[in-house]
C-alpha cells in the first residue's frame, strides 16, 4: 500500500492543478477579452461564425478571400477557412464543418445527394463566372502544328508527348486528382494513344505549361477558365467531340468535351435558416471573370489573399454595396 500512497502523493499536485485551472475557467467563464472585443466590431444583426471551405485553386481563393474580407469587416462575422478538397467539402454540409462553398463546378450527383435528398445544403446562386474545362496546348505548338487543336489529330502527335511517366504513350497532364475530370475515360473512349498523368496541383500544372512555352517543349494538359494564367500564356484549347446534353451522364462512358459550367455558390441549410447576414452576402455575391482574374493575379504575385481582397473591395465599393442591399 505504501507504493500506492506514494503514487497518489506524486499525482496530487497535478490533479490539484488541473482542478484549480478548471475552477478558474469556470469562475470567469463569462466575459473574456476574446468575446467582448469581437462583439464591439459588429453592426446590425449578429453574424456569428461562417465556415468557408477552401478548395485548392487560385480562382477559388480569390472568391473566398473577397467574401471573407467583406463578411469580416463589413458584417463582423467570424470567418473560419478550412482547406478541403472539392468533393470532400460537400461532406462538411452534413457534418456541420462547412457552411459555404464559394465556387462549385457542376457536381450534379453531390447536389442531388446533399441538396435534394439530405436537405443539408442550399444553392446560393451563380457567382457570375462561367467555367470551361478542356485540354490545352501551349501557344507555340498551336502555331507550329495548326491542326493539333482538332482532337481527331491527337493520335498523330502522341509520340511527341511521351515522358518517362507515360509508359510509351503520349502524356495528358492533369492537375489535382480532386478536380472535376473525365480525362481517364476520354482517353479510353476516344481511343487515344495517351495516358493521364497527374501533376498534383494547379500550381504544378501552371509551372509545367510555363516551362513548356519557355523551352518550346511539347505539352498537352488539363486546364480551365477563368484562370489568371491565361493572360500570361494564352494556352490554346484542343477541341474534343462537342458536349451534348447527357453525354457525360455515365462517368465511365464519357466520350465528349466538358460542358460550360455556370459556377455557383452552395451554403449549408443551417446558415440559410439562421437569417445571418453572412447568408445574404453569400447569395448576393456575384462578379465577372475579369474581377476574379484581377484578384487571383494579385494573390499569385505575392499579395496575401486578404490584401488582394481589400484592394479589389476598395476599388469596387458600389458592387459590394449591391451584394449587401
Amino acid at each position, binding site marked *: 500500500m505504501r507504493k500506492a500512497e506514494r503514487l497518489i502523493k506524486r499525482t496530487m499536485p497535478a490533479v490539484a492543478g488541473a482542478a484549480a*485551472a478548471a475552477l*478558474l475557467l469556470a469562475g470567469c467563464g463569462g466575459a473574456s477579452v*476574446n468575446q467582448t472585443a469581437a462583439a464591439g466590431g459588429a453592426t446590425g444583426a449578429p453574424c456569428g461564425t461562417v465556415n468557408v471551405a477552401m478548395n485548392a485553386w487560385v480562382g477559388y481563393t480569390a472568391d473566398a478571400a473577397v467574401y471573407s474580407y467583406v463578411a469580416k469587416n463589413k458584417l463582423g462575422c467570424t470567418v*473560419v477557412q478550412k482547406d478541403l478538397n472539392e*468533393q470532400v467539402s460537400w461532406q462538411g454540409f452534413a457534418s456541420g464543418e462547412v457552411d459555404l462553398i464559394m465556387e462549385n463546378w457542376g457536381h450534379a*450527383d453531390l447536389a442531388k445527394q446533399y441538396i435534394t435528398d*439530405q436537405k443539408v445544403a442550399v444553392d446560393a446562386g451563380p457567382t457570375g463566372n462561367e467555367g470551361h474545362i478542356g485540354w490545352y496546348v501551349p501557344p507555340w505548338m498551336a502555331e507550329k502544328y495548326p491542326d493539333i487543336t482538332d482532337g481527331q489529330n491527337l493520335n498523330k502527335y502522341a509520340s511527341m508527348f511521351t515522358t518517362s511517366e507515360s509508359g510509351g504513350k503520349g502524356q495528358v497532364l492533369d492537375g489535382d486528382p480532386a478536380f472535376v475530370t473525365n480525362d481517364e475515360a476520354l482517353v479510353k473512349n476516344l481511343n487515344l494513344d495517351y495516358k493521364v498523368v497527374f501533376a498534383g*496541383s494547379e500550381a504544378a500544372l501552371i509551372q509545367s505549361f510555363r516551362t513548356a512555352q519557355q523551352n518550346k517543349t511539347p505539352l498537352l494538359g488539363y486546364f480551365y477558365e477563368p484562370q489568371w494564367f491565361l493572360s500570361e500564356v494564352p494556352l490554346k484549347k484542343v477541341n474534343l467531340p462537342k458536349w451534348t446534353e447527357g453525354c457525360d451522364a455515365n462517368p465511365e462512358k464519357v466520350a465528349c468535351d466538358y460542358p460550360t459550367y455556370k459556377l455557383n455558390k452552395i451554403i449549408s441549410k443551417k446558415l440559410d435558416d439562421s437569417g445571418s447576414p453572412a447568408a445574404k452576402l453569400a447569395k448576393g455575391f456575384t462578379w465577372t471573370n475579369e474581377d476574379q482574374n484581377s484578384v487571383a493575379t494579385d494573390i499569385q504575385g505575392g499579395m496575401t489573399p486578404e490584401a488582394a481582397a481589400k484592394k479589389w473591395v476598395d476599388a469596387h465599393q458600389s458592387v459590394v454595396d449591391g451584394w449587401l442591399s
Partner: protein
Amino acid sequence: MSALVQERATAQPTQAIASEPRRRPSRRTVLLVSAAVVWILGFLILNGTSTLALPASELTDLHRSLNQFNAWVAANRADNPVFLYIFTPLRSAVDAVANLFTTTFAATTTGLRLPEIGWLGTVALLTWIAFAVGNIRVALLTAAVFVFFGIQGLFVEATYTFALVLTSVLLTLLVGIPLGVLAGIYGRVARIITPVLDFMQTLPTFVYLAPLALVFLIGPASAVIATVIYAAPPVIRLTAHGIRRIPENTREASDSLGTTGLQRLITLQLPMARRTIVMGINQGTMAALSMVTIAALIAAPGLGQTVVRALQSLDVGTAVNAGLSIVLLAIVLDRVTTAASRRAEPGSARKRSASRKTRSIFLAVSLAVVLVMVQLSRTMLWAAAFPQDLNVGPAIVQAVNAASHWLQSNLSLFTVSLREGVTNGILNPFQSLLTDTPFYILVIVIALVAYALGGWKLAVLTTACLGVIIYLGLWSDSMVTLAGTLVATAVVMVLGIVFGVAMGRSSRIDQLMRPLLDAGQTMPSFVYLVPFLGLFGATRFTAIVAGIIYAAPVAIKITADGIAGISPTVVESAVASGSTPWQVITKVQLPMARQSLALAANQGLIYVLAMVVVGALVGAGGLGYDVVAGFVQSSIFGKGLAAGLAIVFLGIMLDRMTQAAAAAPARRIPSPVK
C-alpha cells in the same frame, strides 16, 4: 524435382553460404533460381498477355457495389439504429472532448478566435505541466518551443495540432491501457489481440481515412478517431509487455501475502510496469502527431492544413516553416514523455526524495503564477493574441522560397537527369517486368519464392493474398505499387548495410548518426514530401525518394544493432587470422548478421509501404493513387476502398515473406536431394 535440379547449371553461387558444400546448391537456392527462370521466360514469351490491367476510369462490379455502400450510409445515417445509437453519439462525445481542448489552447469558434486561456496562459500552463511530469529542462524547452510557434506566426495552427494530439492520446490511453492490462494478465486475450494489432500496424495511415470519414463525417472527431486507431497498438503492446515482464517470484511473493487480483494489479503490477507503460505513451504520442498531421485531409485543423495547402501551391517556404513547427512539436512531445518515463522509474523517486518537499512547494508557487497568467490572458489583448510584431513567419517563408528557387534553377539539370535516369533505367524496366508478365506466372513465381522461404504454409498464405488482390480487381495497380516498393526497399537496404556496418563497427560513428536517425524517425511522413516535390516534381521518383528517407533510419538502426551484437571474439579471431577489414565485413560480419538484415528488410518494406499512399500525393501511381483519388472523387469511392484493402494484403504478404526469411536460415532446411 528432377526438372528443377537440371537448372542447377544456371545456379550461380551468388552469396557466400560458407557452411554449404559448393557442389550442391541448397534446395532453397534451386527453388529461387527456378522461380527467376519461370518469371523471365514468362515475361519474354507471354509479354503483355493476361496482365489484368484495369483502365483508371473503369470500375469492376465489386467497386460499384462498394460505391453503393457509400450511398447507403448517406441515406441511412439519420434513422439506422447503428448510426443513431452508436456512431452518432460516439462522434459527438469525441467532438466535445476535442472541442474542449481546441478552444482552451488554440482558438474559440466564435469571437476573435483566440485560445480560451490566451497564448500566454497556454504557454504557462503547458510549461508547468511539463515541469510537473518531467523536469525543469523539458519545461524550459516547452516554453521556448511554444513561444517560437508564435514567432513563426503559427501559434494557432500549432496549438490546434497539439490539442488534437492531446485529445487523441487521452482517448488512446482510455482504450489502450485497460486492453493492455487484460492482454498482459490473460494469455488468451493476448492471443486474440496480437493479430489484430499486427493488422492495424500494417495498415497504411491513409487507408482508413476515407471509410472513417464516411461513417463519422469529416471534422476533428473523425481525425481523432483515426488517430486513436493508429496510436493504440504501441500503447496496448507496451502495457501488456510491462505487466508480463514482472518477474515470477515477485508476483509469487505478493500472492503469498494473500493479495486479491485487483489489489495485485494496483499495488504491484501497475506500479512495476509503469515505466514501460509511459514508454508506450511516448510511442503513442509520436504516432498520434504524425496521424493528426495527415488527418488535415479530413478537415482536422492545424499544421497539417498548412502543409497540405503548401503542397498544393508548391510553396516550399510555407511548407518548411510549418514542417519546422511539426518537428519542434515532435521534439517537445518526445522529450516530455521521455522525461516522464524516467521519473516513473521505480528507483527515481527515492533518489530525489531529498528535494521532494522543495519541489512540491515550487510546483504550488509556480501554479499560482500560471493561474495569474491565465487570468491576464483573459483580460488583456496582448496576452490573449500573440503579438503580430514578433511574427517573423513571412521572413522565414521568403528566405526559404528564395533558397529553393535558387536550388531549382541551378540544380534542375542534375535533378532532372537523375530522375529521368533512375526512372528510365531502373524503375520502368522493373515495373514492366511486373506489370507485363501474365498474372498466373507471377502468382506461381511468388508462391515458389514463398515456399522456398517458409514452406507450404507461407506459399498458401501468399497465394491467398494474391487471390484477394485479383478479386479486388487491382492486380495491375498492385504490381505498379510493388515495383516502386521493391525498388525503394532495395535502396533502403543498401543504405542500411553501408551505414549500419559503419555504425556497428565504430561507436564514434554510431554516436554521431543515432541522434540524426532518431530525429528522422520522429518527423511525420508528410514533412519529407515538400523539399523533394520542389526538387523533382510530382513523379513516382519523388514518391520513392520520400519512401526511402522514411524507411532508411529504421533499417540502418537494425543493421547497426545486428553488426554490433556479433561477439567480439569472433571478429577478433578473424582479424588475428589475417583477414582484411573488407573480408571481415563480407565473410564474417554480414553473414553473421543475416537475421538482422532480413529483419531490416522486413521493417524497411513495411515502412516504405506505409509511405505508398502518402507518396501518391506527390505522383506515385498504382494503389496509392487509387486510394487518394477514391477519397476525393465520390464516383470512384469504391475503387479507393478496394485499393486500400489491396495495400493491406500486399503488406501482409511482404511482411510474412520477409519474416520467414529472417526466421529460417537456408542451411537449416533439410534437403531431400541426396
